[in-house]
């Protein structure tokens, strides 16, 4: 699949003008909070870049992330950028099958050893020796541990690869873990979301191609430029929240007026993603704009964070029970302290003689 054409040549072949390409670079640059001058530099660097080799491994996943990246909407620049990279191995997209496909993977690794970007989609099951997800008879763990050491960097695509996702949801029957739980010695960029926003993926790749580095990451390994703000902070319905105007059901006056969905369970305030800024389907809309609260899919363990329709302010766990236990424990400690203090006092009272006038006169006690 790989050839020696530059990105600019590939794009030209596809009928993408330099003007459109610059526009793309400018939008990526602004999205990533780079200075405007960077857009031109980025365009030049990207245009001159040889196609970056990418190996895409699919583990315990639903292929939704790949769908999002490749087929979200009819040809757009980011799809073409994605096209224009040298996607050397992707088992869903690869033309051949069986031993040939596995041979291609081996070849890709050897050819670009230490240079390719490894994209991982899906979590890795560890329970029972990892038998719950295997490819060509090898467990996901085995494959990851084989491929990852040869990669330049790892991009964990989607919430499953980034945090374990839905496979890891309670009770986690397969013992699913995230890429970062296994790979410790490679830079890992988490691009969570169920699925993630396509432009975030292309943005990260563009950053890598332009700068040769990975972008600044937050404490969860997510690129800060895309995951720095919460959905809530960037939500167009935020003014209603500030005014205390809430939809109480999906079909009341508040819902029709487009008021805040907080009370209907919107997880926007605790979710960090770029949905409210980049939106989906070519900037058409995003869940809240369509009238449904955010599910919080780009946050760890979002599946176990209580009902999608329970307000964030409501407890998700059995608080009453734990509170009762806490009160009982506190009372027990209090009683114990009380008994200890009482014994101190009782002992003192027993041994102490009350003060008398003789004491004041300095006479010995009879």
């Amino acid at each position, binding site marked *: 699949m790989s050839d020696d054409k530059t990105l600019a040549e590939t794009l030209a072949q596809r009928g993408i003008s330099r003007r459109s390409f610059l526009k793309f670079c400018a939008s990526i640059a602004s999205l990533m909070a780079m200075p405007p001058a960077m857009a031109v530099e980025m365009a030049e660097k990207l245009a001159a870049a040889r196609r970056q080799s990418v190996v895409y491994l699919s583990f315990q996943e639903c292929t939704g992330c790949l769908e999002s990246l490749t087929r979200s909407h009819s040809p757009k620049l980011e799809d073409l950028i994605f096209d224009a990279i040298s996607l050397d191995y992707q088992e869903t997209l690869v033309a051949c099958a069986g031993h040939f496909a596995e041979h291609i993977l081996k070849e890709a690794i050897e050819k670009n050893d230490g240079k390719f970007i490894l994209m991982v989609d899906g979590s890795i099951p560890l329970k029972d020796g990892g038998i719950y997800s295997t490819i060509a008879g090898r467990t996901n763990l085995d494959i990851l541990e084989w491929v990852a050491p040869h990669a330049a960097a790892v991009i964990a695509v989607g919430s499953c690869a980034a945090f374990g996702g839905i496979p890891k949801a309670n009770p986690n029957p397969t013992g699913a873990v995230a890429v970062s739980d296994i790979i410790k010695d490679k830079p890992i960029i988490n691009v969570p979301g169920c699925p993630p926003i396509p432009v975030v993926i292309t943005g990260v790749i563009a950053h890598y191609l332009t700068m040769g580095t990975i972008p600044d990451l937050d404490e969860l390994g997510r690129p800060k430029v895309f995951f720095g703000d919460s959905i809530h902070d960037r939500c167009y319905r935020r003014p209603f929240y500030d005014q205390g105007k809430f939809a109480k059901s999906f079909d009341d006056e508040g819902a029709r007026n487009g008021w805040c969905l907080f009370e209907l369970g919107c997880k926007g305030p605790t979710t960090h993603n770029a949905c409210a800024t980049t939106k989906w389907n070519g900037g058409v809309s995003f869940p809240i704009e369509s009238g449904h609260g955010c599910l919080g899919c780009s946050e760890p363990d979002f599946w176990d964070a209580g009902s999608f329709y329970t307000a964030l302010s409501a407890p998700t766990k059995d608080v009453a029970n734990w509170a009762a236990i806490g009160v009982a424990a506190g009372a027990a400690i209090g009683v114990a302290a009380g008994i200890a203090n009482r014994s101190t*006092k009782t002992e003192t009272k027993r041994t*102490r003689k009350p003060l*008398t006038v003789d*004491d004041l006169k300095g006479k010995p006690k009879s």
Partner: protein
Amino acid sequence: MSTSLQQGLAAMIDKIDAPIASFFNSCVHCGMCADACLFYTETGDPKYTPIHKLEPLRKVWYREFTLEGRLLKMFGLAKAPTDAELVEWETLIYDSCTLCGRCSMVCPVGNDIVYMVRKVREGMVASGHAPAGLKEATVRSIEIGSPMGVTADTLRAQIKHAAKDTGLDIPLDKAGVDYLLLMSSAEIMQFPEFMGAAAQIFHQAGVSWTLSSTAYEATNSGMQIGSSELAAVLVKRIVDAAEKLKVKTVISPECGHAYTALRWEGPNLVGRPFTFKVKHILEVLDELRAEGKLRTEGLETERMTFHDPCQLVRRGGVHDQPRNLLRMVAPDYVEMEDAGNMNWCCGGGGGVSANERAEPLRIKVFSRKKKQLDKIGVSAMVTACSNCRNMLEEGLEHNHMDIKVLSLTELIAEHLAK
């Protein structure tokens, strides 16, 4: 063994209670109590910060009643106060605290610092570190019946004088009356007019009253020295007499701490509710006024002010009564700055007046009262506490200030309608 460090520490452990624990826990070390204390404001010495005066008690509490303190004690790291420390603190706790309670008023977390000082004194007296003057006064109270050594015979002699002066019968040990009037030794010995004044007022009001030959002394040195055990002995004397005579109400005279000791601490000291009411003489006079039984004539021409005794106004809530009474006879009545709940102490309450060692300091801090008085320019100051009267007179004399100090009860008696 009579008094010792061990006895002192044991007394503190014995007297530390839930309020003390919560107060020490709550203290945020803001230091606001310093500016409320006249010993600090008039000297500027930080050692007079009220909460600092409690350090020995805090140490005992921390070591005996907190988990951290107990653990440290196990390893010998939490030290109990030493005898040398108690010696150092004796002057802080007895000479520079009049139990006036101004600090309790300003504490932002509501710590009753006076309550805490009382507990420190429990340990101080049990460890033998109480001032000699207070010890002697307490011994006289217990053994003779009065801190100044006034006996029942002295009382009888004064009754004779008062009866002769007023031409009225002054009942002694009369059962079944409305009021049992207590006296303070200062009133019996230094201000004998008080007895006659009370007799005239009660006569005009037509209420029945009596004095008692066994419970004539209202003051409670046990409370001042800080021994709840000795204070209880003195309170019990009054309770026994009042119950034997079956009086409805016991009147605490013009004395501050006597009222606190009997009314607020009394039932706790003897361990049961009283069968009678306890009221301050000003409360009784104001009730009689409200009922129309107290009628006066003639007005004072002098500019006057009222000095609120700390124990009455702050600890007892007797605020409006003296003002109601004073307005009956003194049209040119003005208030001092900080009058009422935040009035400044005369400097000699809480046993300080019985402590000779404290005299220079007490005279020094009178500067606060002087500042209050200088602003209003009065020629007479009325009060309702014999101890305040003594202290104010001394302070005024020392500062060459020509201001008379009057008893409110006596002032009212002088104006009784004929």
